[in-house]
């Protein structure tokens, strides 16, 4: 028998309080039936005796103390899953949004997931070729990695994500799937991704979870959880290699902040709650591979840095959790370089074990080190040139500047449809380094230089 509670005792922001609930359980789901016939979904977020606080996903607008009947479901939020979800579009709470009807569930999974036991994890070492030189050579994507794109408003992060999805050789076979989660992005962006997936002819392998900019904010908190639950199911139950694209994590974090402040929690930096780190980690850590299972979950979260500030709490905490980051640069973007990857702060932590002999090529690591070390020197030379003028620079600094320009124009820059193999990328790197005298290359040992240096 389902008991309905006729009254609410308090409404505040997205929270509603009910008294006199018998035997509630923490985090269980509730349904609110409004007098006008609509329903809303809520979740128990606090219990004090028989007084229960509900978080209402669709917001509390239009709810009064007396016009809603609440029933508790007795279980936490579960996502219905089956292989049919491929090709479907869901809303932020995992309900079908494409008019194709409910999913007939084979299993129902708790959206909060459970942490993967570190002992059961398989250390990721399989290189994914994205065909983009700046990523493949300098911040290599590894299967099972979480590698976010740090961008800013107006930069081409969506194009980059689409190019990665399209060109990635994520699986040797056909066993791959894409899970796309949109949190608070504009309709156009969601449409762009959808049409790109369609034109790349992969739409039947995509699962989309859309919470757009005009959708309820609290729903947004559940969107990545639903998406990752679906991804884990595809990867670890069905054995697929899953690439999860989540955009925009900043909107997600802002939704968490909004919810936190409505609960009256003590804020830490910039008003974000103190548990933002744990909260983001509970999403990002769901990437990985498990021993003895075929599939993998690779994450590419996209976040926009407010005011291009990399020390803002969202990029900052993200960088501490993820295994590296791809940072886009406003300067390169306005200089017409695509993709505008700022290679110095970009990094892939799993790169070191997934490249080199047997994976990509023996010279990959030294070449990457040398390119980055030299490009760092280019920045110093540029700074000096802006003070004393290029003419006054020493010969070696002038050479560095020429190298820097060529590096940006030929190596970082490539077209939206250009798909370079790793060999092409590495050879291009050596071609550029060969512009410099051999003595400048102090990160590479002689055997490698003898083989690849052409200056």
């Amino acid at each position, binding site marked *: 028998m389902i008991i309905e509670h006729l009254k609410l005792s308090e409404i505040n922001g997205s929270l509603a309080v009910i008294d006199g609930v018998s035997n509630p359980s923490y985090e269980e789901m509730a349904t609110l039936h409004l007098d006008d016939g609509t329903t809303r979904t809520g979740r128990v977020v606090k219990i004090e005796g028989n007084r229960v606080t509900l978080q209402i996903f669709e917001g509390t607008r239009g709810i009064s103390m007396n016009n809603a009947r609440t029933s508790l479901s007795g279980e*936490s939020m579960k996502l219905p899953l089956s292989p049919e979800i491929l090709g479907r579009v869901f809303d932020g709470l995992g309900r079908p949004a494409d008019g194709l009807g409910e999913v007939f569930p084979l299993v129902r999974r708790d959206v909060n997931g459970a*942490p993967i036991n570190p002992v059961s994890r398989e250390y990721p070492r399989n290189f994914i070729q994205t065909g983009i030189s700046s990523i493949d050579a300098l911040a290599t994507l590894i299967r099972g990695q979480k590698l976010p794109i740090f961008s800013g408003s107006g930069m081409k992060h969506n194009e980059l994500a689409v190019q990665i999805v399209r060109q990635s050789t994520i699986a040797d076979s056909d066993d791959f799937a894409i899970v796309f989660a949109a949190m608070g992005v504009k309709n156009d962006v969601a449409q762009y991704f959808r049409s790109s997936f369609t034109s790349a002819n992969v739409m039947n392998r995509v699962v989309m979870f859309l919470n757009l900019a005009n959708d309820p904010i609290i729903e947004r908190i559940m969107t990545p959880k639903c998406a990752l639950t679906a991804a884990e199911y595809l990867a670890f139950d069905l054995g697929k290699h899953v690439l999860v694209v989540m955009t925009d994590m900043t909107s997600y974090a802002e939704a968490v902040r909004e919810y936190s402040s409505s609960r009256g929690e003590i804020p830490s930096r910039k008003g974000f709650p103190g548990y933002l780190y744990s909260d983001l980690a509970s999403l990002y850590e769901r990437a*990985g591979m498990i021993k003895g299972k075929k599939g993998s979950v690779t994450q590419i979260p996209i976040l926009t840095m407010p005011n291009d500030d990399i020390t803002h709490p969202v990029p900052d905490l993200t960088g501490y959790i993820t295994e590296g980051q791809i940072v886009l640069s406003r300067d390169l973007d306005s200089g017409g370089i695509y993709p505008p990857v700022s290679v110095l702060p970009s990094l892939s932590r799993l790169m070191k074990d997934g490249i080199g002999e047997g994976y990509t090529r023996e010279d990959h690591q030294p070449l990457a080190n040398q390119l980055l070390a030299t490009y760092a020197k280019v920045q110093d030379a540029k700074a000096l040139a802006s003070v004393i003028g290029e003419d006054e620079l020493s010969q070696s600094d002038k050479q560095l500047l020429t190298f820097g320009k060529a590096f940006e124009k030929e190596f970082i820059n490539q077209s939206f449809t250009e798909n370079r193999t790793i060999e092409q990328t590495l050879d291009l790197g050596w071609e550029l380094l060969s512009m410099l005298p051999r003595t400048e290359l102090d990160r590479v040992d002689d055997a490698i230089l003898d083989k690849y240096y052409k200056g």
Partner: protein
Amino acid sequence: MSENKIYGINGPVVTVKGKTDLEMMEMVYVGNSRLVGEVIGITDDATTIQVYEETGGLRPGEPVFSTGSPMCVTLGPGILTNIFDGIERPLRDIESVSGAFIAKGIDVPAVSKDKKWQVTLKVQEGDIVKGGDIFAECPETAVITHRALVPVNISGTVTKCVPDGEYTVDDTIIEVADNQGKVHNLTLSQRWPIRNPRPVSERLPSQKPLVTGQRIIDTVFPVAKGGAAAIPGGFGTGKTMTQHQLAKWCDADIIIYVGCGERGNEMTQVLTEFSEITDPKTGKPLLDRTVLIANTSNMPVAAREASIYTGITLAEYYRDMGYHTALMADSTSRWAEALREISGRLEEMPADEGFPAYLPSRLSEFYERSGYFKNLNGTEGSVTLIGAVSPQGSDFSEPVTQNTKRFTRCFWALDKSLAYARHYPAINWNNSYSEYLGDLADWYRDNVDKDFIKDREELCAILAEENSLMEIVKLIGADVLPDDQKLIIEIARVIRVGFLQQNAFHKDDTFVPLEKQFKMMQIILYFYHRCQEIVARQIPISKLTATGLFDKLVKMKYDIPNDSPQMFDELKKEIDAKINTILR
């Protein structure tokens, strides 16, 4: 005993209404699924409990079971090579119970109850023993002998001993009758509350360095055995890499590696890598001397707070056996954030940036558990603490970094711009420091070379001078500097690239013995002095660069193997020959 029932639930914080007989900091089991928790607040009408597991699905009215003792860990053979969660539950056993994902309310013993250890008795009937004494030994791994200690609160006469042989951790090894005539059965294992430091006889001065094989640490900013060091750095600056390097190569007997709120894949990496790499000193896998504590960032936050204490308690236990232990905590900021999160749930008054006001005192309590000690049983042992700090927004003025700085004497500041240029370890030599240098000077003089400290000072002076010259170079370029200053810049480059920068992936360069470190430093300085002769004779510095000696010195870290120090003499001869040609 009255039954305690759950009243309120808010994240990891659970309250019990009314007066209870629960004690402060007592360990409890919460709910029907018996989640592990700890009492953190008692008022006359409510008791507050923090729960170390996810609380989803708990209902008010479910029971809270008292255990009568504070949060404890089990100490005994079987700890080494194991990987635990934050409250000492072995993750391998959890895996066999619940599969690849960690389920809730799993109760598994910390150390295997079935495994038999080859025990050798160290006491006989009639002996008088006191707390901390060693009564038996067993080989725990191929390299470490486990010494069973008499619990610190027991002393008396041994009334019964078993013969040498194979026993499990629960078998009684000896019986001790105390002076009240009460008989205690001692086994190989014992329990200890994690928040209490294990007692020692006395604290000794730390006068030996923890040799790590990393040049910037051993030569420039050394840490003593029993010292405490902090590694602060923004993301991507290499905190974890540095911690891994230290865990691999430092000369402590036992390594406790605490992954506190960090990435799951990193712990997997440590686990696989440490079972593959062999320790050069023993020829056995590094894992044989290592304990891992993994509380990754998505595991429950309260257990993250406990993981640091679990780690240090294990370190102290092995110290009591007479071992030198080192604890790597990665990262203490996550621990501080766990404190903040729980403090927020308790609605305590926040201090700086939302952190609780007791943050500094908790940090100081933790770091003071390091030290070089004489143990109760007369052996000497040490606990070295190396804590990574992840400052928000790479801002070193935030509370965790600042308070850590107060309680550690060694500060290895990681620098973003060095990391961007892939200069690893990215320890910035201008704002790092070690206060242990004075304490260790005698050891370096006696064990490495009498000139070691003097040469180190000169090396640092060159770097400092380069730093101030770079201010000028940034404004007007290097070309206008006089030759003696150009020389400083060139030599400093050799020091930076050839000495401070170290390649963790190169088979020789990943660990460099002190002797080679000293020879490298010595030859760089020798070369510098010879170059000064040339500059003094007004010979242009371009003649020097043409010799290729600068590049030769930069690459000597790769060209000269660790076991061929005689090659430095050849290098010296080459320097002399080339410089004498110029001088002629």
